[in-house]
């Protein structure tokens, strides 16, 4: 789960990491009030879950409260990479003397957390990694021992020659590791970490991703989820225990298992179609889940055909068939469907579907080809109507 910058800053501050003073505003008026309270030049930052906000015009400076209001007016209601901006963070503007990068992620190969620092901060760290890898220092941390102060110190002295600055940076790195561990983060990042003219080191930005598997034991963080920042269909799917990602094509896919769902999408593309989505109904086969899955697919106006591909292991095909029949009774969709149900209880499933006349296909490749054929027929039917 991704959380907003202002939530991440709250967490950082709670762990003793110095961040800039600020607050969140949903209206230009609120932005003005916050800027007045701060009483210094401010920066107004769009709160959306994408990188590159600055380049998109989502980060603007203001010397006085009136300008802050005007800047907030510009940003609120903006759409950045498809996501509407509902809130802005109004926070003290700093004049950085030096910008660095500090980030902690999981290194899957080493099976340990790794702290990465770079003196080339403020820019996309992946660009730095690709173009000038020598500008990044890495330190793996033993997950059992935790971080040792010398490890933080070594990274801090790589960033700053001045011991006064290095000491503050080492302290921040130690605390950031604390955040990473305590919050079950999969990413905790400060970009940029700055030195200001008064000789203080401050986190100007804060980014955190939380391990979805750990949300059960992070209730405070789980409550920071912003439903407005998510695609509504993806949010509905998550609540129903489905894994759904909208992709923009015309073939709606309903599959059991993430790997098979991806492989099915790949085959759609291979046979000349475009998948509308990734949707994994998961292991257990509750007919209601299937009904919700079909409802979500139908909410996508681009979908021209629905493909259902189930290879039953734990999932029972008859349960899925029952869900399909129920969904078609409820929604009576105009969009055609083609179904492949193989595995556990497939004979019973075939019996259930037989009375409905819904088309079926015998194999993975066949169901994909058939769905593409159907979507093309839909398209040409629409052409004729025009």
């Amino acid at each position, binding site marked *: 789960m991704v959380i907003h910058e202002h939530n991440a800053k709250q967490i950082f501050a709670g762990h003793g990491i110095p961040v800039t003073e600020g607050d969140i505003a949903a209206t230009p008026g609120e932005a003005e009030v916050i800027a007045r309270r701060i009483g210094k030049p401010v920066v107004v930052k769009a709160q959306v879950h994408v990188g590159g906000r600055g380049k998109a015009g989502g980060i603007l400076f203001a010397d006085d409260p009136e300008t802050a209001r005007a800047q907030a007016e510009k940003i609120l209601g903006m759409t950045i990479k498809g996501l509407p901006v509902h809130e802005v963070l109004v926070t003290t503007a700093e004049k950085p003397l030096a910008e660095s990068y500090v980030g902690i992620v999981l290194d899957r190969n080493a099976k340990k957390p790794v702290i990465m620092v770079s003196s080339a901060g403020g820019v996309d760290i992946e660009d730095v990694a690709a173009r000038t890898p020598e500008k990044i220092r890495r330190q793996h941390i033993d997950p059992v021992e935790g971080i040792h102060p010398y490890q933080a110190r070594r990274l801090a002295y790589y960033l700053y020659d001045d011991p006064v600055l290095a000491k503050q940076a080492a302290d921040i790195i130690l605390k950031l590791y604390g955040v990473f561990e305590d919050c079950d983060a999969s990413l905790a990042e400060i970009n940029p970490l700055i030195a200001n003219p008064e000789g203080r080191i401050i986190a100007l930005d804060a980014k955190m991703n939380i391990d979805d598997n*750990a949300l*059960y034991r992070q209730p405070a963080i789980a409550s920071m989820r912003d439903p407005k920042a998510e695609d509504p269909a993806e949010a509905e799917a998550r609540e129903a225990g489905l894994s759904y990602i909208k992709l923009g094509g015309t073939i709606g896919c309903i599959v059991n298992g*993430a790997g098979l769902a991806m492989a099915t999408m790949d085959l759609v593309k291979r046979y000349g179609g475009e998948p509308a989505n*990734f949707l994994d109904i998961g292991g257990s086969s509750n007919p209601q889940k299937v009904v919700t899955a079909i409802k979500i697919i139908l909410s996508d106006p681009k979908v021209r055909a629905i493909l259902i591909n189930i290879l039953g292991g734990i999932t029972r095909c008859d349960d899925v068939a029952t869900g399909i029949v129920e969904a078609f009774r409820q929604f009576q969709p105009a969009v055609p469907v083609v179904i492949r149900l193989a595995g*556990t209880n497939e004979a019973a499933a075939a019996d259930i579907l037989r009375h409905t006349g819904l088309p079926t296909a015998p194999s*993975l490749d066949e169901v994909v080809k058939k769905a593409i054929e159907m979507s093309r027929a839909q398209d040409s039917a629409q052409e004729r109507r025009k």
Partner: protein
Amino acid sequence: MSIFVDRETCVLVQGITGRDGSFHARQMKNYGTKVAAGVTPGKGGTLVDGIPVFNTVEEAAARFSIDATAIYVPPALAADAMYEAVDAGIKLIVCITEGIPANEMMRVYARVRAAGVRLIGPNCPGLITPGECKVGIMPGSLVTPGNVGVVSRSGTLTYEAIWALTQAGMGQTTCVGIGGDPIIGTDFVACLEAFENDPATDAVVLIGEIGGSDEETAARFIEQHMSKPVVAFIAGQTAPPGKRMGHAGAIVMGSSGSAADKIAALNRAGVPVAGSPTELPEFVARVLNQDLDAVPRSERKAYQYA
């Protein structure tokens, strides 16, 4: 022959009285696996389908010579279950549980590694040596004994591939599902190495997906250390970057973990990559210089979960 498990493997089931644990304990036993005992704290002294249940792994291990344990306990309790198995001296842990926090798994991994224990999973379907032993949840009716090794990060996609092999008359030595999480106990390389050393395995099918760089590492290993042919399939060629595709581990981050990179790395190592899981039998036939049409095709039949 086979890798990791065979007809002699004596299996424990942790979480045997739960919904999944009891169901799959029965399935494993029906398949012919030597399921010796189960563990659920508080249910010691009872029986599940004739299998004795103990309160602790230690008690079960004192009574039987346990070779492997299959873990079906909920995510919040799974790490503890793995530590308990390590402490009782069990050398093969298969963790089916999905949803264990990665921070927890990093510590478990350090422990199993230090103890010299093989951990398969978590969030995996387990493994099966056709006709001999299954530990986990793979449907036994999909597999048939033969000379092809299968290793995969996926679940149902693996079933699709195995079923295609079986229908084409290509049996398997062992099929291993290593799991879809970022932190897993056994990676591709460990399985490839075992298949390379298994005299009964003539070719290996590797099924990967987007995320991480395990496939790239596998490609380097194949190039440098394997004499047996390997063919592959990689899922997620159409997956957009930054979106988690169901599995916690299946995500393209920036430029790393994409299917295109993995396919290129495998091709460079001389591994042909199929465009569909159903094409895998043809690819295996080609690397083994077999005429697929000469292989007797088994009758397409409806299979039931067994």
